């Protein structure tokens, strides 16, 4: 099977922020990517930097930051008179990014307003392999901000996918509103959905005797991914994990974003971020997450 990768145009491009809405603990940033390809694949990511106050005199943020896209839709016409960056033809797409402000870069992006510009490179990396095998039962598992790529994955998989989400609190669980299909929720504080970890929901589903060969797709914090990996390994269930590590470039140039696998270190930005769980001894390695 060819790898699920839509190639990026070479270089970074300016794109316009269309909207920014608060979604509980997160911000949802919509960016009009007129000059990019319309069909990124779920699990692929973009490198983002604000056009202003980023890498200027002296301070952080300096390097761009990696973000999975959460949703994509056609760009629509341009003739709204709004200032536009990039090509003026009806092309590209609207990209939605779900952001959690954890440091200077994500804080800067979360304060952007409609009309502001961002530098965008992508889509990058290899996404989830969905395939078209019959009789597969697809379990989509998202934890916290790791829910982002699970949204577009669920859009692609459609009705058949079972979505399980875990969040710290009800404020974080607002991200579940992005899904077109109903999801099963768990929260650490029990304020919304089950008072449990999402991995508990996964364990129950895998053991419920439902029909179809299960395949698990997951993104979330490293301890969650490690639990998913172990649960699936015990049951000999296939799993694809979208991993994170600190990235400087996003296109294989710096060799900084490595994860240890059974094949040695691999760069998550070119060989991932989605890796087969069977390639990993652990998803909980030094430098995992970011």
């Amino acid at each position, binding site marked *: 099977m060819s790898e699920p*990768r839509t*190639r*990026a*145009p*070479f*270089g*970074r491009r300016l794109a316009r922020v269309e909207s920014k809405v608060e979604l509980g603990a997160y911000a949802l940033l919509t960016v009009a990517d007129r000059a990019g390809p319309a069909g990124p694949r779920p699990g692929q990511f973009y490198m983002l*930097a604000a056009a202003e106050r980023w*890498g200027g*005199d*002296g*301070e*952080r*943020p*300096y*390097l*761009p930051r990696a973000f999975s896209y959460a949703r994509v839709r056609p760009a629509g016409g341009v003739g709204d008179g709004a200032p536009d960056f990039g090509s003026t033809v009806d092309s590209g797409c609207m990209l939605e990014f779900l952001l959690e402000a954890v440091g200077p870069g994500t804080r800067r992006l979360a304060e952007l307003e409609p009309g502001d510009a961002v*530098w965008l*490179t992508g889509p*990058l990396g290899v996404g989830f392999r969905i395939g078209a095998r019959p009789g597969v039962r697809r379990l989509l598992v998202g934890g916290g901000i790791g829910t982002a790529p699970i949204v577009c994955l669920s859009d692609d998989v459609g009705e058949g996918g079972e979505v399980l989400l875990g969040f710290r609190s009800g404020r974080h669980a607002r991200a579940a509103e992005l899904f077109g299909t109903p999801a099963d929720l768990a929260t650490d504080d029990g304020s919304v959905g089950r008072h449990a970890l999402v991995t508990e929901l996964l364990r129950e589903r895998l053991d419920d005797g439902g029909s179809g060969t299960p395949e698990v797709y997951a993104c979330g914090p490293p301890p969650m991914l490690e639990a998913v990996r172990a649960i699936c390994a015990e049951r000999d269930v296939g799993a694809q994990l979208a991993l994170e*590590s*600190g*990235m*400087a*470039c*996003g*296109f*294989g*140039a*710096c*060799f*900084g*974003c*490595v*994860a*240890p696998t059974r094949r*040695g*270190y691999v*760069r998550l930005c*070119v060989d991932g971020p989605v890796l087969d769980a069977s390639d990993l001894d652990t998803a909980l*390695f*030094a*430098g*995992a997450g970011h």
Partner: protein
Amino acid sequence: MTRPFELCGVPLRGRVLNGSGTFDAVAAHRAFGDELLEAFPFDAFVSKTITVEPREGNPPPRLWESPAGLINSIGLPNKGVAGFLREDLPRLGELPVPLVVSVMGFSRGELGALVAAAGERDEVEMLELNVSCPNVETGLVMGADPAETAAALEAVRPLTEKPLIVKLTPSATDPPAVAAAAEGVGADAISLVNTLRGMALDPRTRRPWLGAGTGGLSGPAIRPVALAQVAAVAERVRIPVIGMGGIASGRDAHDFLAAGADYVAVGTETFRDPTAGRRIASELNVISREERGFSEAAVT
């Protein structure tokens, strides 16, 4: 029309190279496809540093962002010279620009083996010797000491006719003396600077953040240091100087040229802007053209 340039007898279409280890043309081709080849951002391509044996590189985390800079502890992961020549060289040979292969040996014997093996391949136009490593036989960092650098270069000089670029480490006490020693025994060009040793602590644990403990600082944070060293080295040698360290714009590149560099290389800025090399080259052309305009106006 752009003026043709020539580095050690190899014609180049411009003056902007990449810093070794800061651009992987094979990986970039996977991400960007053939557009990379159509609009290749550098005027010559410098490979990542290759060693005799394959190396996994350092344990993660390998990156730390510092004010206007980056500290990396990548640890020279590479396939080893045999793997590189077999798997990567044929693909790098297809790039639309001349290829420079960067090598590092942990002894004079290793360095000689690398120079001989890479030098005999037609795809390779030039070799760059990364001497920022200890010689396991003498315990000295090769590039830190003029005599050590000269001895290493003398040993490998007869092994190839291809141009040899010596890449200096900024940690040397006296980089111009190292450059002069290299020139004295047949180096064809000098490149500088490599990264500066740096460290960061995990804000939570106060233990070193990087997997290797320390790393190399690059980016605009080191630009003034690099500029001073480039100026001092250029003053001292007649062979071409390739200047780098924090170059992020045509203005920066122009400063390095004004300080005596003949060529410039771009590293960390490419992480922010994959086509930075091309942007910097065109910004540089504009500045050069304006300057020529001024000087022509001045003589008439």
